């Protein structure tokens, strides 16, 4: 709602909005700060906000003791792999629904999306057993496949909403000029669809990166990503807040940084394309 705001009101509003922002950011900030404290300072009474002796000790210990690199690598492979595979399958599907719609297209789309609403526990055990049979329990490839399938409806849906906004006249004009189906997709559709695809990819990487239900249930030592690492870290070392914070900071840093440099895609992706 655009309307005139007096300068004082504007300052008060901005201050209020920033106060809320700080409150929201506080738990994240606190985790980062705690990761640089000693264990004693992390649980000091009263809590210390900034006046502590900054140390990198926690990071060193976490890296040495728990093979952080392996978990990080698993996270990258699983998030990247499932996203890539999902987009490859979803782009043609979304393309056909957006540009060659049939009577059933809307129904199929809604049906796909509705499956996403179903709780994952309903399919957990059969997949678990299937994975044992196929010998892909606790493997990267297994998780890539599962996370791809889990997020496929969202990828198709999001790409569809973006593709819908590409004017069909452009495609008709290209066809008039004799472009083949392949050329149409490569030279016209793809460049116009890049922003939408980028938001979709970012959302999917975030979803897969944060996925805990499937990764906790289907991995053990070999293919466990960072979420499983944090979960395992927090039980036996429950009282070691500083080290746990260091591990947590390393797990969220990639998303914080990636999100900061692609804010537009982040907002667009996290709202499932509702905010363009």
């Amino acid at each position, binding site marked *: *709602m*655009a*309307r005139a*705001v007096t300068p004082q009101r*504007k300052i008060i*509003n*901005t201050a209020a*909005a*920033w106060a*809320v922002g700080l409150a*929201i950011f506080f*738990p*994240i900030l*606190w*985790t980062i700060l*705690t990761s640089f404290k000693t264990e004693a300072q992390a649980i000091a*009474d*009263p*809590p210390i906000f900034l006046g502590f002796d900054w140390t990198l000790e926690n990071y060193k210990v976490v890296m040495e003791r728990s093979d952080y690199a392996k978990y990080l690598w698993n996270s990258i492979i699983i998030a990247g792999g499932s996203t890539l595979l999902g987009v490859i*399958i979803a782009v*043609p*599907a979304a393309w*056909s*629904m957006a540009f060659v719609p*049939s009577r059933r297209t809307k*129904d199929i789309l809604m049906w796909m999306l*509705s*499956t996403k*609403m*179903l*709780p*994952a*526990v*309903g*399919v957990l*055990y*059969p997949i678990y*057993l299937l994975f044992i049979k196929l010998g892909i329990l606790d493997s990267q490839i297994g998780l890539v496949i599962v996370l791809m399938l889990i997020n*496929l*409806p969202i990828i198709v849906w999001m790409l569809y909403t973006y593709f819908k906004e590409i004017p069909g006249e452009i495609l008709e004009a290209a066809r008039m000029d004799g472009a083949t*189906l392949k050329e149409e997709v490569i030279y016209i559709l793809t460049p116009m669809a890049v922003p939408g695809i980028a938001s979709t990819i970012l959302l999917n990487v*975030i979803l897969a990166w*944060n996925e*805990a239900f499937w990764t906790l249930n289907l991995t053990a030592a070999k293919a466990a990503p*960072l979420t499983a690492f*944090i979960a395992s870290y*927090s*039980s036996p070392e429950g009282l070691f*807040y500083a080290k746990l914070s260091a591990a*947590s900071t390393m797990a*969220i840093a990639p998303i*914080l940084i990636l*999100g*900061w440099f692609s*804010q537009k895609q*982040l*907002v667009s992706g*996290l*709202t499932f394309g*509702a905010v363009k």
Partner: protein
Amino acid sequence: MTLWLERHVPKLVLAPSFAAILLFVYGFIAWTGWISLTKSRLMPKYDIEGVQQYTRLFDAPRWDVAMNNLYIFGALFIVIAMVLGLLLAILLDQKIRTEGVLRTIYLYPMALSMIVTGTAWKWILNPGLGLEKVVQGWGFENFKFDWLVNPDYAIYTIVIAAVWQSSGFVMALFLAGLRSVDSEIIKAAQVDGIPTTRIYTAIIIPSMAPIFLSAFIVLSHLAIKSFDLVIAMTNGGPGYATDLPATYMYAMAFSRGDLGQAASSAMIMMLVVFTIVVPYLYSELRTRND
């Protein structure tokens, strides 16, 4: 041949997604449904025995707690997140200078794994360390805040963390909605001297009804699926005071070795989703088609 291809390509490219979802979702749900009718314990058995798993489930006090928690958690979480999200959107819509950055900060909790941010919440809500100590340090010696370890109140700490995680997301939806309200109508109302609060309650908010619906659908689906939140913050405890259906099912399947119970609880969860979410989804579909 090429002509045939061109005509059928749309269907062919849709087929893999279609088939994957069909098998993956319905095939496996059917399997779970089957198992819920057997006497499976540690390993699946396939002889149908009737509905005894369901009677056992409804007799289990722990399942009662889990379902009750789902109602409390779901209702509070959805209502509070919607109200806060709307207020935040209205605040950000007041021509704030650094809106873009603030919007990103408000959305950050949604982008981060709750398994990870749960750590900070455990510290903040820990009676011996966080909020309680800070407030006591300000001179309120008698201040107590032990919800995290109090079986009667622990579920509300889950609500707090869930609201923290999702209200920025609701804010972003509503903010987009506020921007799409026809500014001519608002100007006309302002010229007529209608007070701002009245403009919001009578014109702007009613016109955002579809956004309320989308927010409701996404939030309810988040509520029913909440799993990592509980695992990260309380692990279902103290005792099983913060169990939700998802964690109940998980405990039955993987630590209790009671597959039949796990399957029947999964089927009940499925039923809850179907009765709550799916009607909304289809009403949404119908209005969009019109």
